[in-house]
C-alpha cells in the first residue's frame, strides 16, 4: 500500500529536486522523538518516532511555489507510520508601501499504513490575508482560511474555515501587546453511522462490530481492541454515534486571545498570553475523541473544545547562537457533545473536561546552514473521563539543514 502511494508521489519529489536548480531553497530535516505515552491515555504506550522531511521553496516573481514530503516512522506502533506530501503556491500583491494581500492555495495528502489507514486523507486549502501597518509600530492583520479534506474513513470528511483579525502595538519600552479574535466553523459531512438493526448492548456506544472503525479506546463493552482488561493499544481515537438518516454536523467557535511580550536587554525575552474560546454553534459529532502524540487526529483539533488556556514563556539568547526557551501552559477545556465514560464502559453523564499542565524546554544551536536542537516536555492531564488521566515525558532532538541554490547578487 505504502509503495503504491509513494509511486504517486515520486513525480512531486522529482519536481522538488529539480526546482532548486532554478534558484530555490531546499530544506532537509530530521527529528527523533521519544514518548512515554503515544496515545495519551492512562495506559501509557511508549514509542520512538523518526521523522524525515524534504521541502523546497521557489520564488518566481511575486509567486512562490512550495512543496514538502515527509515520512514519519513509528518504531513500536508501525501502523501509524505516515508518508505525507504538500504542494502549494502563494501570491503576494502589494497595496501601497505599507500594505499587502497574500493569497495561497495548496493540496496535501497523508498516507498511513494499513492499521491506521482510516486517517489517510487528501485535502485542499485556500488562504487569503491582508496586512497593513497602521503606524510604524502597529500592525493589523486579517486572514481567512478554508479547508476541505476527504479521508479513507469517510466519517472524518469535513470542510471548514476560520477568519481571524489581529492588531498589535510595539512600545519604546520594548513591550509588545497583541490582541486576536477568531471565528471558525468545521462541518463534518457524514460523521454518523446508520442505526443498526440490533441496538448495541450499551446504548449509544460503538458495538463490537464497529470497533475496527472507531473507538478502540473504550467502547463496545470490552470488545475489540479496547482495554476491557487488556492493555490499551490505541484505537482510531473516536467513538461514532448512531443516527438514523445520517446527515452532517457542524461545530463553530469564537475565540479571543491576548499576548504581552517584553524584551529585557539583548538576551532575555518574556511573554504571557491567554486564550478564551467558546463553542457557538453545534457540538462534536463523536461520542468520544482522543489525541495522539504527533498524529493529526481529525476528530480532536482546535474546533473541538471550549475553555481557556494561559501560557508563560522565557527566551534566552546566549552567545555562539545558542538559544534556550522554556514555557508553561495551563489549559482548561471541555468538549461539547463528548461524554465522559467510566472504565466499565458506561457513560458518566458528564461532558468531558480536561485540565492540563504542560512544561516545555528547548535548547538550540544555530550554525550558518544548520540548526540542531533538543527539547523536553512534560504533560500532566486530568479529566472527567478516567481514560484520560495521564502524565507523560517527551524528548525530541533533531536538525534542520537548508541548502540554498539561488542566483547570486542583488537577488
Amino acid at each position, binding site marked *: 500500500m505504502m509503495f503504491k502511494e509513494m509511486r504517486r508521489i515520486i513525480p512531486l519529489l522529482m519536481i522538488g529536486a529539480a526546482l532548486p536548480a532554478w*534558484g530555490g*531553497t531546499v530544506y532537509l530535516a530530521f527529528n527523533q522523538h521519544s514518548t512515554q505515552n503515544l496515545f*495519551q491515555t492512562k495506559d501509557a504506550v511508549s514509542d520512538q518516532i523518526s521523522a524525515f522531511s524534504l*521541502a523546497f*521553496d521557489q*520564488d518566481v*516573481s*511575486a*509567486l*512562490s511555489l*512550495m512543496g*514538502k514530503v515527509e515520512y514519519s516512522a513509528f518504531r513500536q506502533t508501525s501502523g501509524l507510520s505516515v508518508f*505525507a506530501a*504538500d504542494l*502549494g503556491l502563494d501570491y*503576494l500583491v*502589494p497595496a501601497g*508601501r*505599507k500594505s*499587502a494581500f*497574500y493569497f*495561497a492555495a*495548496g493540496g*496535501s495528502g497523508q498516507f498511513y499504513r494499513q492499521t491506521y489507514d482510516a486517517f489517510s486523507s487528501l485535502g485542499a486549502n485556500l*488562504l487569503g*490575508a491582508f*496586512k497593513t*501597518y497602521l*503606524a*510604524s*509600530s*502597529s500592525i493589523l492583520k486579517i*486572514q481567512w482560511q478554508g479547508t476541505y479534506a476527504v479521508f479513507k474513513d469517510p466519517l472524518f470528511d469535513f470542510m471548514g474555515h476560520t477568519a481571524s483579525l489581529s492588531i*498589535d502595538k510595539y*512600545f519604546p519600552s*520594548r513591550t*509588545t501587546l497583541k490582541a486576536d479574535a477568531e471565528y471558525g466553523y468545521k462541518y463534518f459531512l457524514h460523521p454518523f453511522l446508520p442505526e443498526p438493526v440490533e441496538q448495541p448492548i450499551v446504548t449509544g456506544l460503538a458495538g463490537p462490530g464497529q470497533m475496527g472503525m472507531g473507538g478502540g479506546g473504550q467502547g463496545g463493552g470490552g470488545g475489540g481492541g479496547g482495554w476491557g482488561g487488556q492493555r490499551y493499544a490505541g484505537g482510531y481515537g473516536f467513538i461514532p454515534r448512531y443516527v438514523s438518516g445520517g446527515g452532517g454536523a457542524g461545530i463553530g467557535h469564537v475565540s479571543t486571545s491576548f499576548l504581552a511580550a517584553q524584551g529585557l536587554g539583548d538576551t532575555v*525575552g518574556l511573554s504571557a498570553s491567554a486564550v478564551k474560546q467558546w463553542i457557538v454553534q453545534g457540538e462534536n459529532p463523536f461520542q468520544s475523541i482522543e*489525541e495522539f*502524540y*504527533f*498524529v493529526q*487526529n481529525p476528530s*480532536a483539533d482546535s474546533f473541538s473544545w471550549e475553555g481557556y488556556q494561559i501560557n508563560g514563556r522565557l527566551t534566552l*539568547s546566549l552567545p555562539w547562537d545558542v*538559544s534556550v526557551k522554556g514555557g508553561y501552559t495551563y489549559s482548561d477545556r471541555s468538549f461539547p457533545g463528548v461524554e465522559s465514560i467510566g472504565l466499565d464502559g458506561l457513560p458518566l453523564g458528564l461532558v468531558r473536561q480536561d485540565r492540563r499542565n*504542560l512544561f516545555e524546554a528547548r535548547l538550540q544551536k544555530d550554525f*550558518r*546552514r544548520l540548526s540542531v536542537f533538543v527539547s523536553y*516536555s512534560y504533560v500532566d492531564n486530568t479529566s472527567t473521563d478516567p481514560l484520560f488521566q495521564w502524565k507523560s515525558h*517527551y524528548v525530541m532532538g533533531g536538525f534542520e539543514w*537548508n541548502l*540554498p*541554490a*539561488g*542566483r*547570486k*547578487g*542583488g*537577488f
Partner: protein
Amino acid sequence: MLTATAVFALLGLIAAAPAAGQAPGHYYNVDKEVRIEAKVREIVFEPRYKGTAPFLVLRVENSGDGRVFDVEIAPSWFFGRDIHGGEKVAIVGSLAEMPGQTPTIIARELRLRGETYQLRDKHGFPNWQGGPRGKRGIRRLGRT
C-alpha cells in the same frame, strides 16, 4: 539619418539600462560587508528587482553615528514576521552606495528580539522561506 539616430538612441538606452532591472552595483558584494546596530524607523514594502516580489525594506538609524540606511530583508518577510518601528536590530550585509540616494544594505544576517536569522549565505545567495503558510503543522501535545 533618422534611422541611425534611432539606432544610437536605442543602443544608448540599452547601455544605460541596469542589468536585470537593478541599479548598477546593486548586488551582494562580499568585499563591502558591514555590520551595524540600529533602530528601525520605518517599514516599507516596495519593488527592488525586476521579476521578483516586492521586498520588505527597513529604514534604520545607526545607533553609533545616526546615519540612515535602507536595509533589504526579503520578499516573503512582509507576511512572515512582524517587525515594528522602534525595534532594535543588528544587521550584517553588503553596503551599496549610490550618489544622491540613501545607502542600502543588502542584509545577509538579521538579529531581532534575540534571534538571529540567516537571510543569505556568506556568498549572498538567498536563503529565505515563504510567507505565513509556514511549515506543515504537526499537532503535538494537544496545543491546537
